[in-house]
Each structure stands twice: as C-alpha cells, then as structure tokens.
C-alpha cells in the first residue's frame, strides 16, 4: 500500500482554503434558499410594466390567486410575467363571456362582446388571448347559446377555475354559475 505523504499547510494556503470553502458554502446556501423559496420569489408586482393598460384590481386578484401561482410555478421569470398577463386578460375575457351569456338568457338576444382591454406591452400570451376572444365572439354570433354554455363549462376552459365574482377567489367559478343557472344582475 503506498504511503500518502501529508504536507502541512502553510498559513497562506490555509487562508485560500478557507476562502474557497466559504464561497462554496455561500453558493450552496444561496442555491438551497432559492430552491426552498416559494414560487412567489419571481412574481411580478402589480406595477410591473407587463400589466400597464390592464385593470389593477384584476391584476392584484390574479397575483394573489393560488391557482395562478401554481400555473407559473417553475416558469422562468419572463415566461411567468407573460403568463400572468395572459391570465389577467383571461379573467376579464371569461367574465365578459359570462356576462354576455347571462344577458343572452335574460334578454333573448346575444349581446356583442365588450371591447377587451389591451396591455401597453403585449406579452407572448397575447396570441392565445386573441384566439380566445375570437372564439367567444364567434360563439356569440352562432345563435346557439348551447355552444357558449359548453365553452364556459368545459373542464379545460377558463370557466372551470376563474371565480365568477371579482376578488372572490374561494367563491363559485364561472362554470359553477353557468351550471347553476344564475342569471346575474338581479337574477331574473
């Protein structure tokens, strides 16, 4: 068995060892803290430029939604910002669709979809929002309310998770309200 010669460290090399060891520990510590932190670490604030042009109260509602936070968990910050913008716009669009559905039932005629807010800095999610908006407009123009009802109660759709009432994150979803036959306003 070969012998291993132990070389005593000088005080200078000991300092270098300690410095390197300290840096490694610091890196490990930062990584551990980052790994343990929740997904909110990269959450944009409601004053982020990505939200300019959108309703502040809806922005704050989406940012505080646990479902929304889950959806962006693990996303890169830029991706998360884009998705948050998309969700804010989706909240507004889906609630507009619900209001149109209820008005259609009450009044007997499909109303036009109100103009949707446009962010000053459209994110990459803008294309899917444009498609979703076209879909709702097309359903309102179809003359068949059942198609809009299907869209709002579809388990993969916006109605499944977006709360019907602004700010009521624990309350009934848009899908719940449509399935329950609630007519909105004065409920008939």
């Amino acid at each position, binding site marked *: 068995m070969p012998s291993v010669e132990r070389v005593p460290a000088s005080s200078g090399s000991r300092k270098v060892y300690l410095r390197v060891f300290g840096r490694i520990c610091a890196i490990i510590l930062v990584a551990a803290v980052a790994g343990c932190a929740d997904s909110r670490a990269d959450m944009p604030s409601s004053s982020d430029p990505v939200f300019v042009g959108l309703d502040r109260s809806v922005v704050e509602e989406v940012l505080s939604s646990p479902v929304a936070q889950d959806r962006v968990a693990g996303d890169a910050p830029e991706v998360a910002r884009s998705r948050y913008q998309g969700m804010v716009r989706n909240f507004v669009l889906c609630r507009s669709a619900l209001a149109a559905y209820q008005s259609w*039932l009450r009044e*007997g*005629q*499909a109303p*036009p*979809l109100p103009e949707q807010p446009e962010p000053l800095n459209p994110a990459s999610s803008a294309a899917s929002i444009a498609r979703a908006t076209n879909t709702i*407009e097309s359903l309102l*123009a179809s*003359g068949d*309310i059942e198609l809009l009802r299907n869209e709002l109660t579809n388990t993969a759709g916006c109605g499944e998770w977006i709360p019907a009432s602004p700010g009521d994150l624990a309350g009934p979803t848009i899908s719940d309200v449509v399935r329950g036959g609630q007519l909105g306003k004065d409920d008939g």
Partner: protein
Amino acid sequence: MAPSPNATTADESAASGEFRVKKTRFQVTYRLDAATAEGSAIGIDVPFGTRLVPSVESGQRVKPGQVLGRIELVGGLSDAEGTVEQSRDLLRARSVGPVLAEVGGVARISGSAVWVESSGIDVVVGLKPLQELRYRGMAFSGSASVETVLGQQAVPCMAVWLSRSKSDPDPEANSGAELASVHCRLGENVETAPGLSAVLVLASPAQNDVVTVPIIYIGLDAGGENYVARVRQGDGSYSERPVIVGATDGVRRVVLSGLEPGDVLAPVVEP
C-alpha cells in the same frame, strides 16, 4: 361584432326582471363551425310519435322531388288536458304531410328508418344531446360556406337532416360526447373535398306576429302537466297561467296560446 341575427326581437324586459309580452317575428338562425365529409346517404327525419307511410319500395330509385311517402301521427292526437302534452301534439302535427326526396338516389326503408342512398359531400356539425333535441324541434333550410376550387363560396344545402351515430366506439372516452350530427348535402356542382373546415348556416322558417318570451319565463306547474307563465295581476300579485308552447332556440320560446300582448311576466321558479 354585431350580435347574431338569431331569433326574435329586441329586449322587452323591465328593470325589475319582468317581461312585457308582445308579438314579434321568430326565426332561428344558427351559424356553426363545421367540416366537409364524404356522405353516402341522406336521412329523412321521422319525428317521435309519427311514422312514414311509404309510397315507394325500399331499393327503388327515386328522383329529386319525388314523393317518398307521408308522415302520419301514430295513434292520432292525445286527448290530454295538460299543456305539456298539447304542446307536444302540436309539434308532432306540424310534421304531418308528404315527404319528398331532396336528391336523387335509392330509397331505403328499414323499420322506422328512412334514407336515400346518394353519395356526395356533406357539411357536418356534431351536436350535444341538448342541441339535438332542440334541432329536432323544427325544420331547417341551410347554406354553407366552403372552400372550393374557385375559393371560398357560399352554397345552398340540397338537403338538411340530423343523424345519430348508432355505436359509440369508445363509450368511456366519449361520455357526454356528440352522438348526433346535423348534415347539409352540397350540390354535385360544388367542387370541394372532404376534411375541410366550413361554416354551416341553418335557418328555421320565419314565424311572424307570434308571442315569444325568454325561456326563463316559462316553467312547469307543480304537477308537471302544464307549462305555465307567472302573469302579473291587477293587484300586483302573480298567478300561474297555463300556456301552450312551440319552437325554441334555447333562449326564446314561442307561446302559441295562453298569453296576450301586454301581459307582464315574472320569471318562473320551477317546483
């Protein structure tokens, strides 16, 4: 975007949620995303409670416009007093009459199913069960916007009918799936191909000067035998009044009798 030109008229409801009855025009127009598909037969809708008395043999070649038979009521009209049954009777009675072959082909009759074998291109839309019931409640004419060798063209439907898939290939995967379809047969001169996106526009016959009300104002009485509306009385209270109803587009319903222009309704709460 402008609202659909579908059924009916402007809003008549009051701020309180009441609805003031008046006569209007009722026509259902549906504008549906569809697809082209190969078709091999044209179905003849024989409504529930009726039958086709054929005037041709099964296997006989028929020409467009040829009489295939006559729809008759099975067992005549019921003598039920409830307006639910009376409404049903009126709906069935409306389909009584001769049935013509809308395209040429070979007539096939098997039990209560009647169809004309004829190959061509159809524009097809899948229907959910609730849609199917509503679509079966009235006759439609149609037109389709399809891609052709000449570009996008709006062309009339030679025939419009509903079909039902007889087997569900994967019942578990398709729970709540579309079992019924509405078809529009395109003319032979339409140069298109199967598998393309299309838009199908269906229109019911227009009914002028009929009472139509949003369906939230029509319900059933406690016994379930009568359709009723809650009509405001002189003293401001409401009383249930039986009504006979006709076609609906899922939002509005024609009321054939029981309501008069000027009546003020409150929404009905089902028992």
